[in-house]
């Protein structure tokens, strides 16, 4: 998203073979990774998780067209995801019934168009405002659609939703999509395509105007662009790709129900995008992969994983609003100057106290949970393979000691990290 890239690409009138390779190498690498991953992780759970990751990557990237690129905070992005899913399901059912030769791989496109149509309708209303008002309107519209889904039963199927069967469609090259691996490759292909298209979109004049409207809508207006129109177009693009993600989800789960519209769904995509880092194109990808992974893994470990998830989000907002991608990019100059090892060594010193502090916090949260909601199951619990009774003072003292002691030690390591950064002597090299 830096201006330097545009200038360079404008200067290079005819790209040399070298620039061509460096421009396309990341895409080839991603495609290769998508192709090889299912060969490395063969289990059914891994395949399902990777399919879900692919869907949430598209969804999070589409969300970032609003949040990161245009600076619009939406609390109702799941609306377009859900409508995409419903359109896809109804399309699949209709095609399967009357035998129209439409293969499964085009279904996400139908979902995308469904998302687009409603993004045009709702975007026309909501993009008249920006900032906080836009955020609140998106929330209101999400509630409106979510509640309407329970009223318009013939289309939304009420509480139980609408089911479908993906294998009943016209088969292309003998692919029935009965197996998860086939669905995975379909999702991977669409994911790659959408990633590429959305990346290219950030490089178009409209994509650049989105950044201008985000940074200063008034100035964008002075240059002769209508910020409202730019916001509207960005909203439509975002709605389309959210619909594609919804269509893929409909193929994956073979059902569309009102949970697709839920506030949780809208909240999760916001969390994923922000934790990943909304300021960089690859941020939401990191966020989507991480959040999908955490959702599955953390829910196995603890029942109150959502609390940890929310706390992680708050910590990110307070201390690293640029997200994981921002934190990574912060270290890039160090890599170039070969000073990264020094800083990483300082981090390694700070890590154990930080982990001790977190363990203490997690212990006290888990003990509170055990004593309140789980009171009926008795005070005994197990934490990291240690069993104890939560109604005694000792575990609580231990938790307090871990937390306070961990924090004090952690605080002591801060100067070490600061010294490591100072020794790297980063200066902004303008004169180069």
């Amino acid at each position, binding site marked *: 998203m830096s201006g330097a890239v545009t200038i360079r690409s404008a200067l290079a009138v005819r790209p040399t073979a070298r620039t061509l390779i460096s421009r396309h190498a990341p895409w080839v690498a991603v495609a290769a990774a998508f192709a090889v991953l299912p060969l490395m992780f063969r289990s059914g759970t891994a395949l399902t998780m990777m399919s879900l990751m692919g869907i949430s990557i598209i969804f999070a990237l589409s969300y970032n067209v609003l949040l990161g690129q245009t600076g619009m905070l939406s609390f109702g992005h799941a609306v377009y995801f859900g409508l995409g899913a419903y359109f896809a399901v109804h399309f699949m059912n209709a095609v399967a019934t009357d035998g129209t030769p439409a293969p499964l791989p085009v279904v996400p496109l139908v979902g995308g168009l469904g998302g687009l149509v409603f993004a045009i309708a709702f975007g026309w209303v909501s993009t008249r405002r920006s900032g906080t008002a836009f955020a609140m309107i998106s929330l209101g519209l999400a509630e409106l659609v979510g509640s309407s889904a329970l009223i318009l039963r013939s289309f939304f199927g009420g509480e139980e939703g609408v089911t479908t069967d993906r294998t009943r469609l016209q088969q292309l090259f003998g692919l029935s999509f009965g197996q998860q691996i086939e669905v995975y490759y379909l999702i991977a292909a669409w994911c790659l395509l959408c990633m590429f298209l959305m990346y290219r979109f950030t490089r178009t004049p409209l994509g650049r105007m989105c950044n201008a409207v985000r940074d200063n809508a008034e100035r964008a207006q002075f240059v002769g662009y209508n910020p409202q129109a730019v916001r509207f177009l960005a909203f439509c693009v975002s709605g389309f790709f959210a619909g594609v993600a919804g269509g893929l989800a409909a193929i994956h789960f073979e059902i569309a129900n009102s949970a697709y519209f839920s506030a949780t769904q809208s909240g999760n995509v916001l969390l994923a995008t922000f934790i990943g880092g909304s300021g960089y194109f690859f941020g939401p990808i990191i966020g989507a992969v991480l959040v999908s992974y955490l959702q599955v893994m953390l829910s196995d470990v603890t029942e109150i994983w959502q609390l940890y*998830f929310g706390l992680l*989000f708050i910590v990110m907002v307070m201390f690293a*609003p640029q997200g994981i991608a921002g934190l990574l990019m912060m270290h890039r100059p160090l890599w170039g100057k070969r000073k990264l090892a020094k800083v990483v060594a300082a981090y390694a010193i700070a890590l154990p106290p930080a982990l001790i502090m977190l363990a203490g916090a997690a212990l006290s949260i888990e003990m509170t949970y055990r004593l*309140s909601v789980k009171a009926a199951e008795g005070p005994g619990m197990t934490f990291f393979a240690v069993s104890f009774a939560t109604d005694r003072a000792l575990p609580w003292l231990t938790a307090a000691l871990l937390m306070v002691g961990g924090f004090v030690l952690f605080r002591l390591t801060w100067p070490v990290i600061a010294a490591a950064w100072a020794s790297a002597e980063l200066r902004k090299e303008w004169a180069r």
Partner: protein
Amino acid sequence: MLELIIISTLNGVQYGMLLFLMASGLTLIFSMMGVLNFAHASFYMLGAFLGFQVTRWVGFWPALVVAPAAVGVIGALVERYGLRNVHRHGHVPELLFTFGLAYVIEEVVQMIWGKAPVDFRVPALLDFPAFTVFATNYPAYKLFMLLISISIFIALFVVLTRTRIGLIIQAALTHPHMVAHLGHNVPLVFMSVFGAGSALAAVAGVIAGPALVTQSNMAGLLGPILFVVVVVGGLGSLSGAFAASLLIGLVQTFAVSVNASMADIFGFMHFAPKAGSILGDLWTVTLAQIAPILPYLLLVMVLILKPTGLWGTRER
């Protein structure tokens, strides 16, 4: 019919005043700091649950004071150690911070009190019918809720317009730097207003808890309606929030009590769309069924006709 109108008006005004109890704090905080506190409804929920807990320990009347005070302190701490630090990152992270806070508060409430509704009862002192309109008994507790909301509304009005503190707050809304130059501690004013706003939401929670259901999803149910109120009224406008609260309170209670559908109204025309189609669904759905979505329809309509909200002037 007259009975229905009287009862619905009473209920509507009472619900609207309850909404305003929250919307007032939300609006004051918004016009002061420019951040719409997403966790405002969570403070309401926290008030209800703390009220329930304190009621269990010492009784309802102390709870009416203790729970809002506790939530007020929590709110002040959130402003001092959370929001103030996030402020330098800009408005979007501020809004996201309160969003994360709402998420965490809901999880904490679920962690401590569980997902099922808790048994928060109307105090015995107020558990009798206040008066009877035609055949309907009007519960004294609802009258009590109305009374509390109205007295807080009047107190708020007096404090804001007639006292020195109110003057400083009003000045800090528009000219925080000038107020600071005059020697007032503006960050402290911000913190107090945030705390007081949270406490007002908690009062609403304590008095609404026994009447409505005290459950961990009550913030999620009420929050969006609260935001509709402040957007429809015009962001940052206290009088707009008041009008919109009453409007939405009345619209929702009247809609719930009217059990008519398009089929009933236009039935004499002998026209009926096919059942099972979208039009058929719309034709047979009753007004009571669509009552929950009416505030959002109102929001969309207001935005089309007057994008700044009914009383709003500024674009923020």
